[in-house]
């Protein structure tokens, strides 16, 4: 097998991956994504965790430290097995907030602060660059090992050359499929599927080598176990400190690594896939790890002393003459390396463009939103640029460091770096009190300690930190030695750095959160994150604003594309019941738009862009109160319910009363109509009878004719009076009466009333008792109407007073501005049960013929007195019948109006 064949196989494999990604992208574009987004593909894509460091390095690690290599896979196993605790919430929030990267997630939680986004991005770049370099190095090393075996000579210049071409090819692939479009969900089905294919290849390759080692080289599992025991060395013993620390570190890394976050959260198509991955991904890790120790043991046995154990997977089959197997192993390692680089660069490029480049560009180009270029092109190009920069950085790092460190070391160093995001991330998920100040200083402190105590020293003494600083501390301060901070010398450098960085990070994070005060947006976001499973539609950050929907449309078009944006705006306008493309800029709409934009450019940038057009986001007090606590929400809700049910009860009561009133009115109306008919019919009957008699008047004496004609005349007068009374009553009841206000002496009014009432039953002689002194009051009211009331009362007394020597006592009292006039006779009065009726229409206490009226008199009196701002009442228990008429001395317009409204309310 020649080197050319190796290169051709490699190229063929790459072309195959391109085709797979291309075909999947085409399928996805046609909407056939169902099978692509299965839980199987999801689980396989998670295998980017297993990089070349796993593929080659795990065997090397096992050869050096025994079972300790397994901690790197046991930690993630625990995290996935416990998916219900953390990962499920992470994925849910990622979906709810349309998170584009881990930096986006953390910055979105902490008030969409771009400072946090920048911090996390820098941390991720610093941690990931050596890791990318490591992948390039592993490809170069394996290529060199292969060619060395084939040609028997080293190819150090060609190996760098090969690494360069790999880097270029990776950049091409990533740009082609990772920045194809600006997807609203930041998902890349082509890339994910290619990663899944690579996952299968690397697993198969490792298992193939393992099966070969166990069943061909050795004589089955039993033999391998004895060989393991034979090969075991004292340094393979499990060291409790490292064992716990590494399980923990690997568990943290699987949550915090940007590339893991990318495939696990951002590329997740369905939450339920996580349930499958919770056991399937640990199974993948199990399968990957199963043959690591056997390969290491057999490699140690068979390979010449001094050969690099990191390459046993490749060199063992080569040495044993299994070229095909070696080729498979090479492709497996190639897959492991490339998949990691692709996903990591996509994740990092998204962060760099969303948190560094675009905000910077927006800052530099402050100006009217409408006059900007195509943002989509800008964002995509910034990502392409970022991909090239990151890969270039990785390549330069590889060339400069030249593969000095063992593969495993740099991987663990990167793990400790990304672990610095843990406090902020867990705080984001579970602690509403966490705020951006705490997150920023925690991240900053952890980052600095990691740099000082682990990352910079890892280059070896004299590169960044001099040997003197390493040995004696900066400026000779002993307790600041990078590997022995605060005098802690019992831990090895990795655990030492992990311990101090995470401890101080957490302390800073917690104290910052306890002492600082969050912004309103932070508090809203905090509630949304922590209560992700309870709050469906969260509180909104935007208040109703005067922002022009047109500006928003033109801005959004630059990010989402014209047709997509117009569809979005149109659907929202339609939902608001408006035609056209411009919905009202309601908080709901702004919130939806922000999330849509966040899917493309990240939460912080999207927030900033909308803020430029809309102005500052204001969280209303109601919003805050609504999210302040669920208890408050529930209480508010139940209070609302209670208030509502009270209101309903009140309404029902009012309706019931209104119904009773209507029923009573209807009964009254019926009674009134029958009364009226009756009252009209009686005179009509006599008029008809007498007119019939007059019609055949021949032979009737003239005096009889005159007598009958008089009766007819009297009856017509009675009829007219009845109709007049009815008319009068209706006018008074409707309050349409025109009051004729004038001044008069009360004494004169009473005198006039007595004179006028004398015509009623003039045969009866009434004695009047009056007090002239108290009557001498000047009143200002509708004197005609008032006299009418007096006349009515006096006439009634003349009609009904049953005393043999009737006496009428009229007494006047003045109570402030009110005047009370009592008319008391010495009759037997009105029986109690009738008292309530006397002011009703057609209420007549005795026989109609005796009264001679229609029974409307007192009803009219009552209406008049109401119109005069006073009242008329029957005063019981005074011996005779006593009517008390009270009214204001001076009638004001307002009084009449007030009394009218009082009356209408009473009815």
């Amino acid at each position: 097998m020649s080197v050319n064949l190796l290169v051709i196989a490699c190229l063929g494999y790459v072309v195959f991956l391109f085709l797979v990604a291309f075909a999947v992208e085409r399928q996805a574009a046609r909407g056939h994504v169902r099978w692509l987004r299965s839980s199987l593909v999801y689980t396989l894509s998670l295998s980017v965790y297993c990089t070349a460091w796993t593929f080659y390095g795990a065997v090397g690690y096992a050869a050096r430290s025994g079972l300790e290599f397994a901690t790197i896979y046991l930690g993630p196993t625990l995290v996935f097995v416990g998916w219900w605790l953390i990962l499920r919430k992470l994925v849910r929030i990622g979906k709810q907030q349309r998170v584009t990267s881990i930096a986006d997630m953390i910055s979105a939680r902490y008030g969409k602060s771009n400072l946090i986004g920048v911090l996390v991005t820098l941390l991720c770049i610093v941690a990931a660059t050596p890791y990318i370099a490591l992948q390039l190095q592993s490809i170069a090393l394996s290529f060199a090992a292969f060619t060395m075996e084939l040609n028997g000579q080293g190819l150090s210049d060609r190996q760098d050359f090969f690494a360069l071409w790999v880097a270029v090819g990776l950049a091409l692939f990533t740009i082609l499929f990772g920045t194809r479009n600006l997807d609203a969900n930041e998902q890349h089905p082509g890339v994910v599927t290619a990663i899944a294919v690579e996952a299968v290849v690397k697993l198969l390759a490792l298992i193939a080598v393992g099966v070969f080692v166990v069943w061909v080289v050795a004589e089955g599992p039993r033999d391998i176990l004895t060989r393991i025991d034979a090969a075991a060395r004292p340094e393979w013993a499990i060291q409790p400190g490292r064992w716990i620390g590494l399980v923990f570190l690997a568990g943290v890394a699987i949550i915090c690594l940007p590339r893991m976050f990318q495939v696990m959260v951002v590329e997740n198509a369905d939450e339920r896939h996580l349930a499958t991955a919770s056991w399937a991904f640990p199974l993948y890790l199990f399968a990957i790890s199963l043959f690591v120790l056997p390969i290491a043991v057999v490699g140690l046995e068979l390979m010449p002393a001094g050969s690099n154990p990191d390459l046993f997977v490749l060199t063992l089959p080569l040495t044993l003459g299994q070229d095909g197997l070696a080729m498979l192993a090479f492709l497996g390692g190639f897959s492991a390396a490339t998949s990691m680089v692709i996903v990591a660069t996509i994740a990092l490029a998204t962060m760099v463009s969303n948190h560094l480049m675009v905000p910077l560009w927006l800052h530099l180009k402050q100006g009217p939103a409408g006059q900007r270029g195509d943002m989509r092109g800008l964002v995509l190009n910034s990502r392409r640029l970022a991909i090239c920069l990151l890969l270039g950085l990785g390549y330069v790092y590889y060339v400069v460091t030249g593969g000095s460190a063992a593969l495993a070391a740099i991987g663990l160093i990167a793990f400790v770096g990304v672990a610095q995001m843990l406090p902020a991330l867990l705080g984001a998920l579970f602690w509403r009190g966490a705020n951006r100040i705490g997150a920023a200083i925690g991240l900053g402190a952890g980052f600095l300690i990691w740099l000082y105590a682990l990352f910079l020293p890892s280059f070896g003494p004299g590169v960044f930190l001099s040997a003197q600083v390493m040995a004696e501390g900066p400026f000779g301060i002993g307790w600041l030695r990078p590997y022995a901070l605060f005098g802690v010398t019992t831990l090895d450098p990795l655990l030492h750095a992990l311990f101090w960085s995470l401890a101080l990070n957490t302390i800073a994070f917690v104290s910052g959160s306890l002492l600082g005060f969050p912004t309103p947006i932070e508090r809203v976001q905090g509630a949304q994150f922590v209560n992700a499973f309870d709050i469906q539609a969260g509180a909104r950050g935007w208040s109703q604003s005067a922002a022009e929907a047109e500006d928003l449309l033109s801005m959004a078009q630059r990010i989402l594309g014209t047709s997509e944006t117009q569809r979005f705006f149109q659907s929202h306008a339609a939902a608001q019941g408006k035609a056209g493309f411009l919905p009202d800029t309601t908080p709901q709409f702004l919130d939806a738009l922000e999330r849509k934009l966040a899917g493309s450019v990240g939460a912080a940038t999207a927030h900033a862009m909308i803020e430029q057009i809309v102005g500052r986001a204001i969280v209303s007090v109601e919003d805050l109160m609504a999210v302040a606590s669920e208890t408050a929400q529930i209480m508010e809700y139940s209070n609302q319910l209670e208030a509502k049910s009270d209101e309903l009860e009140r309404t029902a009561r009012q309706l019931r009363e209104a119904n009773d009133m209507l029923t009573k009115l209807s009964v009254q109306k019926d009674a009134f109509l029958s009364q009226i008919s009756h009252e009209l019919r009686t005179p009509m009957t006599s008029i008809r009878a007498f007119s019939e008699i007059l019609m055949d008047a021949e032979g009737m004496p003239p005096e009889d004719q005159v007598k009958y004609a008089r009766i007819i005349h009297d009856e017509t007068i009675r009829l007219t009076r009845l109709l007049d009374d009815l008319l009068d009553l209706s006018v008074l009841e409707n309050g349409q009466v025109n009051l004729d206000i004038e001044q008069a002496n009360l004494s004169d009014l009473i005198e006039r009333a007595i004179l006028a009432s004398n015509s009623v039953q003039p045969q009866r002689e009434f004695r009047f008792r009056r007090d002239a002194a108290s009557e001498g009051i000047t009143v200002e009211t509708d004197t005609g109407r008032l006299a009418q009331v007096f006349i009515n009362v006096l006439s009634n007394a003349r009609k009904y007073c049953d005393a043999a020597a009737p006496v009428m006592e009229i007494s006047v009292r003045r109570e402030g501005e009110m005047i009370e006039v009592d008319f008391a006779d010495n009759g037997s009065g009105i029986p109690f049960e009738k008292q309530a009726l006397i002011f009703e229409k057609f209420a007549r206490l005795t026989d109609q013929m005796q009264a001679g009226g229609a029974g409307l008199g007192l009803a009219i009196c009552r209406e008049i007195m109401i119109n005069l701002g006073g009242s008329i009442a029957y005063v019981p228990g005074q011996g005779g019948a006593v009517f008390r008429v009270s009214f204001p001395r001076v009638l004001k317009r307002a009084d009449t109006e007030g009394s009218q409204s009082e009356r209408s309310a009473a009815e």
Partner: protein
Amino acid sequence: MSAPQEPLFVARETFRRRRLMDAARLLPVLGLFLILLPMLWPAPEGEAPRAAREGVYLFLVWIGLIMLAAVLARRLSAVLNGEAGSDGGEM
């Protein structure tokens, strides 16, 4: 007659589902305990540890955890399907 028994049935169902969630939360704790156990096994002073025995134990624990997780995930995805939205951490 079956109507009054129905709430009891529902409560029982809910109860089982919540204990299932508890199990899912506690499984990593059990796993951690089992994984940390080999640290406590005495290693002969200055000699090589019995790596084969430890390895077999570790991989058995590993596959056991995976199988338990598979059972739980199967039941829990029914919960996810049923009520994709609600559950939370309440008891």
